[in-house]
């Protein structure tokens, strides 16, 4: 659905996006993660044809961002980072205006607006000025606007930033619903790792304009870390057991936390069985054995070099 080829954008002095290449597949939620100033918004503006790349190019739904800008604008929906609704106008007037700019006729527009405002729980407030809305309501209305013309790709630039936890949760659920029920392709910029973990199929991490990692979380973890941690919970333990575990080839480090043994092992070895054997055959009582996954936070922090 989206493919970029060495996409680059320089502002005088700053390279905001630096030779970025990635692919977003149909129907997925693609997470675009990075700290503030990483180049997320600039990437969205390039893909939505508001900014022109300094070099490189990209296609959205097969259309080139340099040549088919108007076509692309008519088949994508964008939730901008900052609210961009007319606060002096009502919710209905806002949506009617944008529907007209999308070339929809009055009846079609009204039907679609009713559907969307009901979906987002804003129908009752349609005649109120947007200036009186809460931040959460504004985000919802802005997402409704992005969906007016039933776009093939939806860009969401930090959809939950600045929202209280309850509104943020509502928005996340809405995004999931949009993706599941309607199979929309969603490009989601965020620096909220919890959100990315909950919503995204694949992620790209961008830092200072450069993509430092891309793939499913598991793939990134695989690529990034040479070791994994196995946690063994036992009823009692002693130095003899720890020694036995240390002797297993592939074990890198053994740490004890209460009655839990944290075993760092080389990720190329599959040692679950062997470890369990040592415990049980040594006469110890094995209560649990789990492989600890790296959190997205570990992955992210490693990628951006913190």
């Amino acid at each position: 659905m989206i493919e970029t080829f060495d996409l680059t954008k320089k502002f005088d002095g700053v390279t905001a996006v630096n030779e970025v290449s990635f692919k977003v597949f149909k129907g997925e939620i693609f997470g675009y993660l990075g700290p503030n100033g990483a180049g997320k918004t600039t990437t969205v503006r390039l893909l939505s044809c508001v900014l022109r790349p300094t070099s490189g190019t990209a296609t959205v739904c097969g259309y080139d961002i340099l040549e088919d800008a108007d076509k692309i604008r008519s088949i994508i929906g964008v939730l901008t980072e900052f609210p961009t609704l007319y606060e002096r106008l009502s919710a209905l007037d806002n949506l009617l205006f944008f529907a007209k700019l999308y070339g929809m006729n009055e009846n079609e527009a009204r039907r679609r607006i009713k559907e969307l405002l009901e979906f987002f729980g804003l129908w009752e407030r349609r005649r109120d000025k947007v200036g009186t809305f809460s931040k959460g309501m504004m985000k919802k209305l802005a997402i409704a606007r992005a969906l007016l013309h039933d776009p093939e790709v939806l860009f969401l630039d930090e959809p939950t930033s600045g929202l209280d936890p309850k509104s943020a949760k509502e928005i996340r659920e809405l995004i999931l619903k949009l993706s599941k029920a309607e199979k929309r392709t969603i490009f989601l910029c965020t620096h909220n790792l919890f959100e990315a973990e909950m919503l995204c199929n694949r992620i790209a991490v961008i830092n200072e304009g450069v993509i430092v990692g891309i793939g499913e979380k598991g793939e990134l973890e695989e690529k990034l870390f040479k070791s994994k941690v196995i946690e063994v919970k036992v009823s009692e333990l002693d130095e003899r057991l720890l020694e036995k575990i240390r002797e297993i080839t592939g074990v890198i480090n053994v740490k004890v936390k209460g009655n839990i043994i944290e075993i760092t092992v080389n990720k190329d070895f599959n040692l679950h069985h062997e470890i369990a054997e040592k415990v049980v055959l040594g006469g110890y009582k094995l209560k649990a054995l789990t492989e600890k996954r790296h959190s997205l936070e570990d992955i992210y922090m490693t990628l951006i070099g913190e």
Partner: protein
Amino acid sequence: MRKALAIMRKDLKEVFSSRQLIISIVVPALVFGVILPIVFGLSFTAEDNSTEIGILNQTIYRYDGVVLRDSSEVIAYWMMNYMLPILLMVLPCGITCVVAADSIAGEKERKTLEALLLMPVSNFELFIGKMLAPFVIGVVIASVSAIVSMAISSYFSISLLGKSFLNISTWAITILLLIPTVAFMAITFSVIVSVYAKGVREAQQMSGAIIVPIVIILIASATNMAVFAGVSRILLALLFLLTGLIFSYVSSKLMDREKLILRV
């Protein structure tokens, strides 16, 4: 063009939902369309020509082919058909600039312009659409004020001098040619300014400056000063139109999506 009209309608709705903007449109309209003609009208004084001395002293003045009997009539004629329409030109200029600052620089300042730039609207439609509302408001308000001020000054002229010295053809040219061309020049200038201005206030101050040369040129032509001596209002309208066309050429070169976003 449908999309340009949609932008105009949206801008008009926004303007009329802001009390502050309504005030800054209505107050000058009242000052120049009502208060000024009243103040001028009250200063009309009839000279007594009925006495013998009066008749002896009588000289005939001709102005635009109109025969005037004494200096007070000359003054009244001059005020009604020269000063008033010239001062009224502050309206198509000032009001257009105020509305343009809100609807162009204002959208930039409030960041809503980004949403507009994301729409499948051609640069040309965007350009025309954004100029329409300020132009229409400027022209309509100025024309209404002009008609009101014509009525008021005629009333004073009839009641104090016995007859109306309103020169209809002068006023017709003012309303039909000068007001639209002045507003056109103001809006095209405002578009250029709004590309550079950081906010509404700055845009207003910068674009409002265009009033000064316009009024100076008009006064120069009315008082036979310098190169504008004897230049008719039709020629002046042509001059404003031409300048507006040059401004719109310049602004069409400047108005591009990237520039508008970058300077936010």
